[in-house]
């Protein structure tokens, strides 16, 4: 029948830590940060170091909002590699009061259109459904 192939173990390193340090520092303070181009004012989330719109790279870190509306969600029961040790989790998309759309984990009972406040567990953005 079938035979074992030689395993391909892919271990990655990537430069996100330095590139996105202000994002993680912001999360520790409970703030979600994106970047804004100082020249043309375009706001990026996920944050970008470069602005393809005006070709500039002079960016500043700015808050994208602290509360918003839950636009949609899904409850992950069949978890991928790397997430086996979590209980089932709910992934949502939130539109913040500043109009930025972002992915997060949902805390509480999800409902499309629910008002949420943004926070963090230190590893990702969370949104808590307001009672």
């Amino acid at each position, binding site marked *: 029948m079938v035979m074992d192939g030689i395993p391909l173990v892919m271990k990655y390193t990537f430069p996100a830590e330095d590139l996105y340090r202000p994002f993680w520092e912001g999360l520790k303070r409970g703030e979600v940060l994106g970047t804004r181009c100082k020249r043309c004012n375009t706001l990026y989330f996920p944050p970008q170091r470069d602005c393809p719109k005006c070709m500039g790279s002079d960016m500043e870190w700015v808050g994208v909002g602290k509360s918003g509306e839950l636009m949609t969600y899904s409850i992950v029961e*069949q978890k*991928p590699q790397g997430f086996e040790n979590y209980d089932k989790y709910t992934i949502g998309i939130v539109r913040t009061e500043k109009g930025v759309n972002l992915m997060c984990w949902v805390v509480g009972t999800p409902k499309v259109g629910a008002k949420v406040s943004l926070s963090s567990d230190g590893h990702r953005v969370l949104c808590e459904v307001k009672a």
Partner: protein
Amino acid sequence: MDRKVGIVGVGMSKFGRRNDVTVRELSWEAVKEAFEDSGLTQKDIQLTVIGSTAYRGTEIYPAPPVSEYCGLVGKSPLRVEAACATGSSAVFTAVNAIASGMVDIALVIGVDKMTEVDTATSLAIGGRGGNYYWEFHMYGTTFPTYYALYATRHMSLFGTTEEDMALAAVKAHKYASYNEKAHFRNKVTVEDVLKSRVISWPIKLLDSSPISDGAAAAILASEEKIRELKIDTPVWVRAMGYGSDTSYIAARGEWTGLNAAREAAYMAYKVSGYTPHDIEYATVHDCFTIAEIMAYEDLGFVEKGKGTALLREGQTEKDGKVAVNLFGGLKAKGHPLGATGVAMVYEITKQLREEAGPVQHSFKKYVALSHNVGGTGHYAFVGVYSR
């Protein structure tokens, strides 16, 4: 398109868990059939385009071993990739090579052997189908999750239910039962779908296309060459539209339909001169049941939010207003990523030539459409064809 392009031969392997072959023998099943179907041989081919995502197989650079096995060395195996729309991106590349006058005859091979890794690894590869760091790394997205995000919002805005979505699976399995090459040939009920294991709510196991192995092939030629070869049953490619969208799903701002698909459809209708009302047969990208409902809306078969009605009324069944996926769809025929878009060309060619046996649709104008989405709406290709 500068020169008219026609499909002159098609082939398809059996889809499914193909532990009996490597990617090379699997490809040959489809290529051999396409050669026999067209009456052409390797010496007629000037360009080979291979569509394969390949990440889930042992051959992660499959183009050279596949082309060698198929006797195509020296015929430029060009490999292209556009996630789940890889097959259509390969067809698109070949069509353009012929339309531009660069070559007269091209062979497209779509192939993927996806079951060579275990399911957990496969999910982890699929979960990277968007933006690695800002989605998968932080949130543990799986590929079903992305479509589930669309399903939840579609349900909330338009009242679509899990039962409605299940109807798409029931239809797919019903037609796949007639298809000897389909991955699944069992029928399912709405209750079976609703009771199946939750993968990423509201998507359940039976809302999802399987992880499949499979290959499909198509030989395309210029109109001039088709006349010269006296091929009297070509299927003409009237247009190939394309569209794209953001990698980061949250940035799209609307989660009830795919902007990439709407762009691709607009281009395909504009170039071909046909409208949604002219389409009598369509292959749509039903990787998940919600995707079929969204496709009806994105392709303009019905207005936004009415996709479920089309399904409920049976208008996308055989001999309905626009028959959809009578070979079983991705959902039940199977979804080997690289093969899928080419298998759509296979299906449309068989239908337009009236060689589809028990699932033959009755045509009046002989106009068909293919809709193939890559990633979670990152790419889309819409083709329009006529006899």
